[in-house]
C-alpha cells in the first residue's frame, strides 16, 4: 500500500540519527530492522551499487560523509528515482544549513540564501 516502508539515517556506528516509519512495527522489530539495515549497508564497498535486497524489500541508500541515508521500498520500485529522492532531500537539508548553522540563525535574508544556493549549485 505504501511505497516507502521507512526512512533511516544512521551514522557509521549504526546509531540512528533519524527514523521515520511508514509501516507499523513494534519497538523490538524496529530495533531489529535498524540493526539489520546497518549490518547490510555498512559492509558495502563504495564501488558497489547503492541498492541492497533486504528481506522481501530493497533498500536504497546513499552515504554522505559519515551518515547513511536509507530508504526501504518495494522490490519493483524504481531504484534511481529513490536514490535521487535522497539526494533531493539532502539538498533541501543544505537549504536549512544555509539558514541555520550550529543551532544559530545564520542568514535571514531570503534573497541572500537563494544567491548562496545558486552559487553552490553552480559549483556542482
Amino acid at each position, binding site marked *: *500500500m505504501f*511505497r*516507502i*516502508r521507512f*526512512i533511516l539515517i544512521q551514522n557509521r556506528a549504526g*546509531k*540512528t540519527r*533519524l*527514523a521515520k516509519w511508514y*509501516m*507499523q*512495527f513494534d*519497538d523490538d*522489530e*524496529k*530495533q*531489529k530492522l*535498524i540493526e539489520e539495515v546497518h549490518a547490510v549497508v555498512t559492509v*558495502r*564497498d563504495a*564501488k*558497489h*551499487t*547503492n*541498492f*541492497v*535486497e533486504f*528481506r*522481501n*524489500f530493497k533498500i536504497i541508500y546513499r552515504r554522505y560523509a559519515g551518515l547513511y541515508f536509507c*530508504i526501504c521500498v*518495494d*522490490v*519493483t520500485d*524504481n*531504484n*534511481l*528515482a*529513490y*536514490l*535521487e*529522492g535522497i*539526494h*533531493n*532531500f539532502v539538498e*533541501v537539508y543544505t*537549504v*536549512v544549513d544555509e*539558514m*541555520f548553522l*550550529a*543551532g*544559530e*540563525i545564520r542568514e*535571514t535574508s531570503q534573497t541572500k540564501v537563494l544567491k548562496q544556493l545558486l552559487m553552490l549549485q553552480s559549483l556542482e
Partner: protein
Amino acid sequence: MSDVVEKTLTALPSLLSLDSQPGAAKLSSTSKLGNLIRGITELTSKHEEEKLIQRELTSIKEQVSSPNTSMRQMKELMVRATYCEMLGYEASFSYIHAIKLAQQGTALEKRVGYLAVSLFLNEDHELLLLLVNTVLKDLQSTNLIEVCMALTVVSQMFPKDMIPAILPLVEEKLNHPKEIIRRKAVLALYKFYQIAPNQVQHIHNKFRKALCDKDPGVMTASLHIYLQMIKENPEGYKDLTASVVTILKQVVGGKLPMDFNYHSVPAPWLQIQLLRILSLLGKNDHSTSEIMYEVLDESLRRAEMNHNITYAILYECVKCIYTIHPKSELLEKAAKCIGNFVLSQKINLKYLGLKALTYVVQQDPRLALQHQMTIIECLDHPDLIIKRETLELLFRITNAQNVTVIVEKMLEFLRISKDDYTTTDLVGKVAELAEKYAPDNEWFIETMNTVFSVGGDVMQPDIPNSFLKLLSEGFDSVEEDRKLRQFAVDSYVSLLQGGPGKLPQRFLQVISWVLGEYSHLSEELDPATVLSLLSKLLDSKNTSSETKSWVLVAMTKLCEGRAGVSVAREVSETYSSSLDTALRQRAQELQHLSQDSELRARVLPRDASREPLEVDSSLSFLDGFVSEALAAGAAPYKPPHQRQEELAQEKALSLEPYGLSLPISMSSCSIGDRQSPTLLSVSSGLSGDSIELSHKGGSATLKLDGVKRVWGREGYLSKRESVEETAQVEVPSPLRSPSQQGEADKSHNQTPTPTPTPEPEQEKQQLASSLFVGLGSQSSVCLMGKSDLTNQRFRRKARCPGTSSGSSEITSNSIVSPPSMVDSLLYNNLLDSNITSELDLASPQSPPQLSQDLSTANGTCDVDLTDRDVTANNPSIIRDNGVVAAEDPDKPTDLCLSSHLPAELSGLSRSEITALCSHQSLHLSACHVQGDDSLALVVFILNSSDSDVQQMLLQLDSDQLEVSSVSESPVQEVRGDSVVVCQYSLTVKRPSVLVEVCGVMSFMCSVGTPQSVQFSYKLPLASFIRPLTVSTEEYGTMWLAFSHDTKQNLTLMREDRESLTATLNVLKNKLQLHVVEIIGMEGIVACRLLPDQPCLMHCRINAGTLAVWLRSPIPDLPDCLIYHCQRALQEH
C-alpha cells in the same frame, strides 16, 4: 517518491516559521533537546546511551505529570520524548499528553502535539480516537495553518471507523481557494481510499476534478489515487489515457513552472508516476497503447543521458514500452537504452540495466545474447546484488540445454549466500528448474540433494512435498520411474552412510520417506542395512522429534524378517514411553505392524501411493463402533469448540490441553493412511517448528502485501515476431550434435570476435556458449516452437483425462463423417476423406437490420450446418437465383467455381467448395488447398446479377489462426455475372480440433445502401499437418525436449502380425504423417503443424490395441492430433 520530497517541502515552511515567531524555542546550543542530542553523540557505548536516555525519560515523566507544567514546557518535553522514542526507547506515558497538547495548545504547540502524535501512535492505537474531535475542530477552523495541520495528521493516520465523521469536511476542502489545502485534502482522501476504499467511492468524479486542477501540485497528488485505482481496475480508466498523455507531454515539454525542475529536469518524479500509469493502461491493449507511442518516443528523446534522475525516467520509459502493446520502433530505441545501461561503467546503471534485461528477456532473448559477455562478467562481480540479479536473468533464459550450467551457477551462489531470504528464493528457483529441465535422473537427484542440504529448513515446505509427490506419482514410463527411485534410494543410503549429522531436518524427512517407500527397489540393498541406518538417525541428538516420526514410519514399512522384527521391537520399546505423543503413536504402530505382517501388507501396501487415496471423511466405517459404544453408555462425541465452550461456561478446572490433544491424536492415528508423514508435516509444520514459525512471524508484518512476482514466467505473449527474428541468431554450443555444431561454427566465425583471445577471455566465451545455448536459436536447431518452450522432463501425470476427451466429445456431435466430394480433376487419394469442412451460416452479432436481410435472403440464419446439410442446401440457393442449373445436385458449385481456382493452386489437393453465404445475387463460397508448406484458403465471390457490386471489403479474422492475404491488392468490385477470387494463407496460432475463420464482407450494390454479410468457415486441424522427415536419432533428442504430451489407446486395423504397419499406413495416408521407423511392435512417427511446429508420436502394440503417445512443444497439439488419428482409423 514524491511523498518524501513533498513532506520535506511542507516541513520547510514550518521550520522557517520557527524563526519568525518571537519567543519560539530554537534548536539552539542552550536548548534541552540540543543538550540531549549532543550528550548522546558524545557517548561511546550503547550501554551509556541507554542509561542517559532512561534518566532523561524519568525526568520527562516527572515533569509531564506535574500540574504546574505549562503548555510551552510541555511542547519542549514532547520534542524530547519523541526523540527518545525515535531512538527506540519507549515513552508511552507521554502519548496522552501529546494528544492533549494537540487539543489545547496554541498554533505552534498544537503543531508539536500533532507531530508527536503522528510519531508515537500507529493506526490501530486506541488513543487515536481521542484525536478525532480535535481534528474535526481544526478542520473547521478559519486558521489556514490549523486546517493544514489537521489534514496532515489525517493523511498520516486516522481510525478507519471514524472516516465518515470527517469525510464531508475533507471533501469540502477540495474546493478550497488555497492549493496547499486542496493538495492535502487530496492526499487525505488517498489515505482514506487506501484504508477504506468503499467509503470514498461516491467522490470518484471529484478526483477527476483534482486531476484537472490548475495547480500542478494538486494534480500530482491526485495521481497517487489514480495509480492505485488503475492498478486495481485498468479497464475502468481507459478514458484517462488521453489526459495522462497530455499531462506527460506538457511536463516533458517544460510547461510546468521552473520550481518543479530538479537538476534542470522537469518534474522527474511526476514523469515517472505518469509513465507508470501509462504502462498500466496500455498493458494488453492495442488501441490504448496506440495513443501513447508518440509521447513515449518524446520522453525517450528528451531524457538525455546525463544524470541519475534522467536514467530513472529512461528506466521507467523502457519498462513501459515493454509492458504495453509492442511497437517495433520504440522497442528498438528501448533496447538501445537497455544496452547503454548494461554497458555503463556506473555500477548503479549496470544493475538497472540487468534488471531491465530481466524484465524483457522473455520477449526478446536476442537482447540477452547481445550482452552475453557483460552478463558473464556480472556473474563474477564482487557485489553480490549484481550477481543475484544476473542469476535472476539467467533463471529466465534457462532451457533444457543450458540448465546444468545455470543451476551450477545458482548453487555456487547459494553456498556463499548467508541471507535467508535469498536462500529461500533461490532454492525454490533451482528446484523449479530441476523439475522442469532435468537432463537425467542422476543430475536431478543430485541437484535436489544440494537443494535440500543448502535450503535446509528455510526453504518453502512445498519443495520437499512436491518432490515426494513427483517421485510417488511417477511420470511417463514405469521403467524410468523405477530407475529414478532406485537412484534416489542409492544416493540417500550413501549420504546416510557418510554421516547424516549435518543434514537439515527436512532433508532427513525426505530421505526417510523415500527409503521406507522404495528401498526394496534396490536389489543389492539389504533391508537390515537400511533399518540400521535409520535407527542410527533415531539415536542422533540432532534429529528433531518430527523427523523421528518420519523415521519410525519408514521403519514400519521396512521391518521385514527376523532381523527387522527385533530392531522394531527395540526401537518401539524405546519410544513407546516417549513424552511426545506423536512419537509414541508411531512407535505403537511400529510395534503392532511389525508383528502382524498380514495386517501390515494391508495397511501399508507397496507402491500404493500411486493409487489415489480414498478418504471417507465422514468416517462412516466407524458407525457400528460408535453405536455400540453409545449403547454401552458412552457419552456422545462433541466437537472441540463445543467442548471448550462448555468448559468455559462451567468455569471448571481448565482441561484445555486434554481437550485439544484428543482430535489431534485422532487424526494422526489413522494408521491406514499410507501418506501420513506428508500429512503429518502439515500439522507439525504448525506445531513442531515453532522456531521457524516465530521467525516467520517476525517477518510477517514486513510482508504485508507480499512480494509480488513481478516478472512472470511468461513474457509478453502477443509479441511473437521478435522471437522469430531471434531465431536467426546463432550461438555456438558444445552441446549440439555434430552437424548442428558445424552450422554453429560457421555462424560463430561470422561474429566479429578478435581471433587471438586471451585465456580468461576464452573461458568466458566458453561459459557464454554454454549459458546462452538454445536461446533464440531453438528454431534453427530443430523445428521446435516459437516462444513457449517448456521442455519439461518430469511432467506430472494428469489425474483426469484432460481436455482431449472433452473437446472430442463436444465436436464429435457436430461432425458427421462427410462423404468425400472431391473434384475429379483434383483427385488425390492421399488426402481425401480427412478434409471435413463445416459451414456456419451465422450472424449472431450483426446489427438487427442486417440479420433481417440475411434471413430474408436465404432464411438460414444461426444454423450450424454440417457438410451433409450444406450439400443439400446449396443447390436450392443457387437454383433459386438461377445461376446454375446443374443436374448433379452434389457438385454444382464445385464444377462452376473450381475453374476459377488460382493457377498455382491447381494440382494440389483441396477440399470441396462450400457455400458460405449469399445475399441477393451475391454468393460467397470457399475451399482450402493444401500445399506442401502452406494452407491456402480460397474465397470465391460470385455476382450473379448484371449490375456491378462496388466498394467491396472482405475481412477475415480468427482466434486460432493467423490469416494473411495473398492477393496483392484487395478486390474492391465484382462486375456483373463474374467471379472474383481472394486467396489467404493460414497458419495455426492455437491448435484446436477444428479451427474457424470468421469473415465480414461489406459491399455496395449499384442501387441501394451499404450492406454486409458475415460468415464463418471451419476446417480440421488435420489440414495443417504435414510430414516431418527426421532420423531416429533426431527423433530421440526431440522427444526428450518436448513437454506437452498425451497418451491414448487406439483400435488396430487388423488383428494380425502386420497390424502395426497397416495401421500406421492408414494414418500416414490420411493425416500426412511421416513414419520414421517401425521396429517389431513399436513404431515412431513424426509430423509438423504448419509451418514448423513438430509433433512426435510413439506407437506400441499392447494387448490388442495401439498405445499411442504424442509429444510436442505446443500445448494442445497432441490432444488435437490424437483426435484426428482416432477419426482417421474409425473412418477407414
